[in-house]
């Protein structure tokens, strides 16, 4: 179902961009037709977001030209791009936490009445209309920081739509959505396509590409690596185009039978809030326990509460059979429990720090001599860990702020690889990670369990839950409604429990 040879909406010619120490893009060509959904693929750091920021006037290209509907344009800032009919949903959210959805959507273009005051009613009406069309329900009166991540994502989308863009860029919008919500987004995208809107869609979920896109362009190391029509290619071919070689993107084999070592972590009861559901779970040496469920089903909250990052009403936690007090992450760390947080930029990284500092930050004790940090040992270990997770950076002395989204995630993973913790909580570990790196992270996780560590993996990606977990706790509405093992770990059963709350 390739779109007809439509008119050209956008053409990029020979776009190059260099950052200090990094050639991010070299001579990129790209052509987008009206009314098509065009996938832009590439490994982490391939240059996708950079290219889109150039298109949006946020970065200036060192070389290259931008044509909109055949005529050359120069964008000095995002405003110029908006005026040319371009709307972008950025990879990093761009919402204002303490404004509500209406105020966020109209930010920069507030409707005013004849006194120059805001016409709140009119703006609210058209916001309601936008969300009606999107088919999502959002409380328009509360600050958006009180909305769920998914809701915020839809506010982003509503904001881009309200620009009446004719070319819409979606930079990894599904990274924070469940399959359900993503499906909803695709429905919206198809409707837009029918109205003639052109879209550039970036995602590391290759199955999504086949579901919603028409054509595909691939970047590799900042250069064009090929184009394809959706009908004329398959996942393997795309992966090869992205990575430049064939890769094994199967999951590493699960140990058979499932590991059932000693119980390294037991949570006989945990109640986050007074009157809320009481949950319990157990984690064995060498196993990967999945926390599956819809976005907002309470997986992250439970994990954070268990390890003491958030206050909870009541809990009992046993480490290796002994009760432990976990009132803050430090106590968790002292008891060998580490967390790879869900939102790397906000909760994981010091973006001003170098790769080295970020990797070693909670492990300085290991590099101490005479009370001071031994730089030599620190550097050595950081280099080694960065290499193991495949951080793509000029050196370990590079500031993390300048890394691509996926590479930033890898830095946080490297931190925990280097740590002696026995229990690791990986919250959405592959969010925003490219296929090649995903495979590496999966095998790293297996290797860790082989060394006797135990992992809780919170994930919204069913395939990785199914492919990686030895047991799966399914969440619904804040409760663990089922714990699956063996053959019952399959998409159908998990989804059934997650959506029905197990009360079938």
């Amino acid at each position, binding site marked *: 179902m390739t779109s007809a040879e439509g008119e050209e909406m956008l053409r990029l010619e020979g776009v190059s961009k260099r950052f200090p120490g990094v050639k991010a893009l070299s001579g990129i060509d790209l052509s987008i037709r009206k009314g098509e959904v065009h996938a832009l693929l590439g490994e982490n750091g391939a240059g996708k977001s950079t290219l889109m920021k150039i298109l949006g006037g946020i970065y200036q290209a060192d070389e290259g030209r931008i044509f909109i509907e055949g005529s050359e344009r120069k964008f000095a800032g995002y405003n110029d791009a908006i005026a040319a009919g371009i709307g972008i949903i950025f990879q990093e959210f761009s919402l204002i936490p303490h404004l509500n959805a209406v105020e966020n959507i109209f930010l920069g273009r507030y409707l005013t009445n004849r006194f120059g005051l805001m016409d709140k009613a009119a703006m609210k009406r058209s916001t309601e209309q936008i969300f009606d069309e999107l088919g999502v329900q959002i409380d328009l009166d509360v600050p958006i920081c009180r909305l769920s991540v998914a809701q*915020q994502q839809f506010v982003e989308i509503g904001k881009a739509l309200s620009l009446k863009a004719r070319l819409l860029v979606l930079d990894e919008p599904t990274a924070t959505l469940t399959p359900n919500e993503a499906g909803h987004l695709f429905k919206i995208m198809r409707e837009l396509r029918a109205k003639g809107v052109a879209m550039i869609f970036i995602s590391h979920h290759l199955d999504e590409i086949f579901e919603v896109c028409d054509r595909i362009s691939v970047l590799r190391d900042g250069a064009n690596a090929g184009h394809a029509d959706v009908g004329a290619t398959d996942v393997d071919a795309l992966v090869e185009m992205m990575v430049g070689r064939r890769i094994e993107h199967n999951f590493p084999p699960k140990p058979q039978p499932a590991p059932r070592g000693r119980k390294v972590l037991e949570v006989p009861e945990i109640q986050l809030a007074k009157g809320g559901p009481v949950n319990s779970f157990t984690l064995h040496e060498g196993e990967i326990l999945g926390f599956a469920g819809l976005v907002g089903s309470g997986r992250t909250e439970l994990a954070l509460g268990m390890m003491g990052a958030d206050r909870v009403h009541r809990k009992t936690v046993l480490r290796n059979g002994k009760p432990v007090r976990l009132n803050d992450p430090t106590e968790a760390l002292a008891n060998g429990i580490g967390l790879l947080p869900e939102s790397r930029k906000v909760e994981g990284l010091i973006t001003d720090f170098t790769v080295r500092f970020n990797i070693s930050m909670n492990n300085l004790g290991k590099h101490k001599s005479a009370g001071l940090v031994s730089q030599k040992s620190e550097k050595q270990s950081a280099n080694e860990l960065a290499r193991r997770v495949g951080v793509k950076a000029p050196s370990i002395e590079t500031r993390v702020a300048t890394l691509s989204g996926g590479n930033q995630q890898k830095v946080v993973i490297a931190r925990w690889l280097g740590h002696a913790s026995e229990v690791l909580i990986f919250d959405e570990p592959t969010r925003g990670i490219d296929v090649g790196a995903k495979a590496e992270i999966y095998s790293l996780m297996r290797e860790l369990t082989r060394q006797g560590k135990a992992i809780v993996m919170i994930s919204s990606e069913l395939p990785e839950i199914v492919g990686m977990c030895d047991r799966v706790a399914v969440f619904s509405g804040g409760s663990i409604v089922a714990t699956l093992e063996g053959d019952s770990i399959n998409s159908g059963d998990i989804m059934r429990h997650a959506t029905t709350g197990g009360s079938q």
Partner: protein
Amino acid sequence: MNATASHPTPPVPSGGFFTQLRRSTAFLPLVGLVAISVFMIVATDNFLSWGNLQNIALQSSINAIIAVGMTAAILTGGIDLSVGAVVALSGTLASGMMVQFGLPPMLAVPLGLAVGVVIGLFNGYCVAYLRMPPIIVTLATMGIARGIALIYTGGYPIDGLPESFAFLGGGVLAGIKVPILIMLATYLVAYVLLNMAPFGRYVYAIGGNEEATRLSGVRVSRYKLLVYALSGLTAAIAGIVQAARVTSGQPGVGVGFELDAIAAVVMGGTSIAGGRGAIVGTLVGALLLGVLNNGLNMIGVSPYLQLIIKGGIVLLAIFISREAKR
């Protein structure tokens, strides 16, 4: 900063007036004001008299007016330390115009206000366009404005202001002292500006996430410029009122006023990190400090002890309201 709160709480129902009030950042400061006032009513004879209430409002007025611009600056994530010096500069300049050049107040007052706006624009230009840190820019202009005021006056107060000008500081209209009316008018305008005009949303947006605001096509630099100009303006208004109240232009006045204004803003529930707060809260905060000053004097607490008690109460107030700040 990223807008995503990773642990979203469920949407709160909108609710009626009381719910609205409770959810407002000004709620806890208001409770504090009431609590302190009740204490003062019990502890002193004369606290609740009309005279004393006006007295409190009058004494709070200068700080409250300065705190309007300070609120805007803090909401954008900035700060303005030059306000105290601007009070001195605008007051002495307006006074000089009247005394030395015989200008009528109608002309001298706008000139005094203009100099505040000019300093504010300068601050804003450095902060918004040259991207210099507000705290240090305004620390520098604090010195510069004070220096100009001292040189202009030679260090002496400027005396002999016309009665019509003194009216701004001591006059009574409809039974209410003029500085109080000026304060209320300033707050009314600020309320409209910050809550009903686009300007206000941009101020909050900049403080909430400056980069994202810029990406939304808001001319961030221009609004920041305006915010500091506003702060210069309200400091200058306070300077005029101050000069009228002391019927002289004092080059040395206003030292430390910036700290009082910051205290009023923060006591009023505005987050020092920007993006969150309310102008009404600032008024409450300023009155709270006013009640404290007045009440401790009325009780007859020794001046040294007053310092300790005031510090303690500021701490207590922030301690109680800190949860609301999350």
